[in-house]
Structures are given as structure tokens and as C-alpha cells.
């Protein structure tokens, strides 16, 4: 199989890196946030392919961000790359523990329990005055892998986020094509049969959960660096809901869809919030209803359908 997706991803990365040189600062900032959140949605997509919807990815998003914040504020780390790696690692460790507990749950019970876990973190963060309580605190990174970077909306961070997104998307694409990765849709279709065929559903669910958490942790860390501020709201259930929203909108058709979805979402949010702060959510909700009712496979299915025709 000639890998069209991999080639398209390389092309997308090249375009991103070149475009970043001419984009204005606000667009760079918006793009980094979209890429970071896109990583979270990418993880969500993997879970959805496994037949699981998590209403608590905000947990790992916040863990990644707070790992950055704590390393930066308390331990005076200032290298962005190290901090993102630490965020992903922290998310992985927590996901290993929680994932072992969650692996036996499906459908709404999985959704509710993930929600409960993320609300526990929210409750803790709100009450911990050492971590800035409800206000959160500022994050300030100075270098990236040794290269000095100026502020959150710098080309350096943008390039890093682009490469991270590329690696995430490409890695997930490879994983989904592998034998292990192909078990996920089988679990969604009928997990009892998967068990009869000799694969461990539990292990695959745990693995996918951890991968999703790592992607969310890295995404949260990148967003924290780009925004320069973190607060407990990142672990609140509405944040997780936003990720679910984008994932539904994007569908599970392609690894590029989460990034396009979250870029679209961030752009709409920025514009809509400026012009009609009280109706933009309503528009989003209506759009989501429309997608669920008329495009059950997400917006990506529009492209797919056109390509399928001769």
C-alpha cells in the first residue's frame, strides 16, 4: 500500500513550517493552540475508534499544562521541550493507574467515570492555593531544546508544535494500520468476539487510553506554553466536552481531521466570541446536532464521499 496519508502529512508539515514564516503573530498563536488541542482530539479519536467516549480528557490536558507550570514555577525549568515531554510523561503515568481501573468500563459508564476523575482533579486544583487556586498562574518558557524563544507566540514554539502534531498524527496513523491498532475498531464492533479470537480487550483498551492521555498531556503542555497561563478550568468537564465536540465534528476518518477540526473550532470561537458572545455556543450546539443527525461519520466524511466517486 503506497502511503498517501504519510505523504500528505509530510506535505502539510512543510506547508505549516513555511506558512509560519509569513503569518502574523495572532495567527501563529491561534495555530499553536489549535495544534495543541488537535493533539488532544487526536487521542480522543483513537478512543472513539475503540468505541469509547471520554468526557474527561481535560484531566490529561490539565495534567500536561500543570506539569509545565510546576516545573516552570517551582523548579525553575525554562526549556519548553523538556517541559512538554514531562507533561506527556506525567499524563502517561496517571493514565496507567486510572486506565487500569477504567479498562473494564464501557459506554456511558466509561464516560461518567472519566468525567468524575477529571472533576476530582478540578476540585483539587481549585482548592490548592500553592498552585494558584482558581486563578491558576503564569508560565514563562525561555528556550526550546536550547534555542531561545521569544514568548508564547513565537515561530520556534510554532515549529515545535507543528512537528509534534506531525509526529503524533503520523505515529497514530502507523499505529492504526498495525495489527495491534486494528483491534480497536473490532472492539468497538464486538468485543466478545475479539476475546474469542484471542486478543486481550482489556490490554488494548488500556494501551489506547494511555496513548490518548500522552497526546492530551503533550497538547495541554503546548497550549500552556502558547497561552502563557494555566488555570483549573482546563480540567473542568466543559473543557472535555469541547474536545468531544471537536472529535465528533471531525469524525474518525483521518488523523488530519482532528487538527483541521480544532483549527476550525478555534477560528470560529475567536471570531464568534468577538461578534456575538451570547450566541456562539448555540451555533456550535446546532452544528453538532446537525452533524450527528446528518453526517454520523463527521465532517471528514464529506471529503471521503467525494473521493470515493469515480
Amino acid at each position: 500500500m503506497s502511503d498517501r496519508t504519510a505523504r500528505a502529512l509530510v506535505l502539510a508539515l512543510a506547508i505549516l513550517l513555511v506558512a509560519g514564516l509569513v503569518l502574523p503573530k495572532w495567527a501563529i498563536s491561534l495555530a499553536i493552540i489549535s495544534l495543541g488541542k488537535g493533539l488532544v482530539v487526536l487521542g480522543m479519536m483513537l478512543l472513539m475508534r475503540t468505541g469509547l467516549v471520554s468526557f474527561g480528557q481535560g484531566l490529561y490536558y490539565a495534567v500536561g499544562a500543570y506539569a509545565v507550570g510546576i516545573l516552570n514555577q517551582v523548579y525553575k525549568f525554562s526549556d519548553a521541550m523538556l517541559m512538554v515531554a514531562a507533561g506527556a510523561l506525567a499524563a502517561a503515568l496517571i493514565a496507567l493507574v486510572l486506565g487500569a481501573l477504567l479498562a473494564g468500563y464501557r459506554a456511558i459508564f466509561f464516560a461518567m467515570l472519566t468525567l468524575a476523575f477529571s472533576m476530582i482533579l478540578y476540585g483539587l486544583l481549585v482548592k490548592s492555593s500553592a498552585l494558584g487556586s482558581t486563578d491558576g498562574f503564569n508560565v514563562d518558557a525561555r528556550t526550546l531544546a536550547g534555542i531561545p524563544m521569544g514568548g508564547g507566540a513565537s515561530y520556534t514554539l510554532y515549529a515545535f508544535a507543528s512537528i509534534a502534531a506531525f509526529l503524533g498524527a503520523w505515529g497514530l496513523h502507523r499505529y492504526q494500520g498495525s495489527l495491534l491498532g486494528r483491534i480497536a475498531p473490532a472492539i468497538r464492533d464486538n468485543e466478545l468476539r475479539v476475546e474469542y479470537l484471542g486478543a486481550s480487550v482489556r490490554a488494548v483498551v488500556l494501551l489506547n487510553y494511555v496513548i490518548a492521555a500522552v497526546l492530551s498531556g503533550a497538547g495541554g503542555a503546548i497550549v500552556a506554553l502558547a497561552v502563557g497561563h494555566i488555570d483549573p478550568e482546563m480540567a473542568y468537564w466543559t473543557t472535555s466536552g469541547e474536545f468531544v465536540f471537536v472529535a465528533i465534528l471531525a469524525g474518525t476518518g483521518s488523523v488530519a481531521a482532528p487538527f483541521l477540526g480544532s483549527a476550525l473550532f478555534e477560528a470560529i470561537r475567536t471570531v464568534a466570541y468577538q461578534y456575538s458572545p451570547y450566541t456562539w455556543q448555540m451555533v456550535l450546539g446546532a452544528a453538532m446536532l446537525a452533524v450527528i443527525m446528518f453526517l454520523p461519520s463527521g465532517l471528514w466524511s464529506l471529503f471521503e464521499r467525494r473521493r470515493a466517486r469515480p
Partner: protein
Amino acid sequence: MDQLAAVLVDGVIYSSWLFIIALGLTLIYGVMRILNLAHGSLYALGAYVAASLVGAWFANGYPPMGSYALLPAAAVIVGLVAGPLIERGVLRFLYGKDEIVLVLVTYALFLILEDLIKLVWGVESYVISEPYGLLGSFELAGLPYPVYNLVLVAAALVIGAALTWVLQGTRAGKLLVAVIHDREMGAALGINVSRMYLVTFTAGTMLAAVGGALTAPTVSVLPAMGVEVIVLAFAVVVIGGLGSLPGAALGALIVGLVRSASVHYLPQYELFSIYLVMALVLLARPKGLFAGVEARKI
């Protein structure tokens, strides 16, 4: 000793409130298998309508005691308008889909309702403290308690008893129980399932709204109130077992007592404690304390 008494009294009051807001959620799930994320918004809607009605009542100088009748009236209005609108307008097209898809649908409804509330009522707060203060307060273990809290407890008992009676003592309720057990068989026996769903969703909406209406006098009514309530109601319902009436009562009691104990002894961990209990119960009994056994389908 005094503190223990305070914990218990606070706990019971808080539990009553939780029970009222959780009932509608568990009823709708039990009958329709829809975990309604818009429940909190319907609760907020009830609070806003009650705030508007009571505000207008006092602005016109009507007898203050009459304002109590407006609280359930607000709930009935919200239930009769929003319930059928949502059920007939959106949900009925989606029955038979995956439970998780329906959760996402109600999440979309939640987004829509949140903004609808902001559009109609704006973002400033509404305060209608008159019904709260009107009844005075009583003293217990050295602490003053507003009598209105007893109204909450009484309301919880009355609503819970009424719902139990409807489900177990009336023909319509028994038909509903039959639909819960087997929707297709119920339909085959001539039960109008689609009407059952309409009535259930309307009743569930009304229950959410009555929770909001009864809460309105005790807080300032703000757009964010629905978002907070929804996860609390989930915790209660999930602990008890989704779709179970006694489960909701037990869940409310557990969450209420845990929260009040934590407020008194470990105020730092108030919010944390509730979700911790929920997570622990779910880990021990994945489907909640009162859930039945389900057959695995191959």
C-alpha cells in the same frame, strides 16, 4: 456532638436538594436510556422562570405568601414548554441510537440552552430572596437554620413519594414500568411508547425545573448554575444506579452527608470528596448500588 448534629442536619438538607435535582435525570435515563446532559440547563431554566415570576409578583405588591405557589408553577411552565419541544423536536428522531450518541445530542442541547438563557435573561444575576427569608428561622444545636430548608426537605419527600406512587400505584405508571423492562414487547401489547416517552421527558424536565425553582430563592440566579449542578446530579444518580428511584435517594443521602461532613471537618476537600465517593462506588459496583443484572449479548 453539636458538630455531628450540624453535619447530619446540613447533610439531610443538602441530600433533599440533591434528590430533587437527581430525580428527573434518573427518571429520563430509566425510561428512555438517555443520560441527559441538558438536565442542568433545564434546572437553570426553572430557576430563571421562577426568579422572573417571583420578581414580578413582588414588584406588583401581591401578598408575599402567594409567591410560594409561583415556584412549582414555574416548573410546570418550563416542563410543558421545553419538554415537548425537545422531545418532539430533537430526541424522537434519535431513539434506537447508541446511548453515547444520545449523550452527545444532549450535550449539544446543553450548549444551545445555555446561550438561550443568556439571550433571554442576560448575564447579570437575579436575586429573589423574599421566599427564603419570609418563613424566618429556627435554632438547632446553637445554629440558626432558615425554615425554608424544611420546605426543601418536605418537597423532596413529597416529590419522591408522589413519583413512587405514580410508578407503582397507577395504571399509567405500571405501563411505564412495563416499557422500561421491554420497550418492544410493550409496544407489541399496544402501549403507546412514543407518548410514554413524551410524558416521561416532560415530567423529567419538570422535575429538573422544580429543583431550579426551589433553589432560586436561596442563591443568586446566574448563567453558570446549570453547569455546576449537572455533574452533582450525575454523581448522585451514578452512585445509586442509573434509572433507579431508591438509588437516587440513597445516592443523594450519601453525597449529601459526605459533602456536609467534608464542609465541617475538611473544608478544603468539599468538591473533591463528592467525586471521590462517586469514583470509589463505581469502582466497587460499576453500575451503581441499585442497578440490576444485564445479560451480555454476543
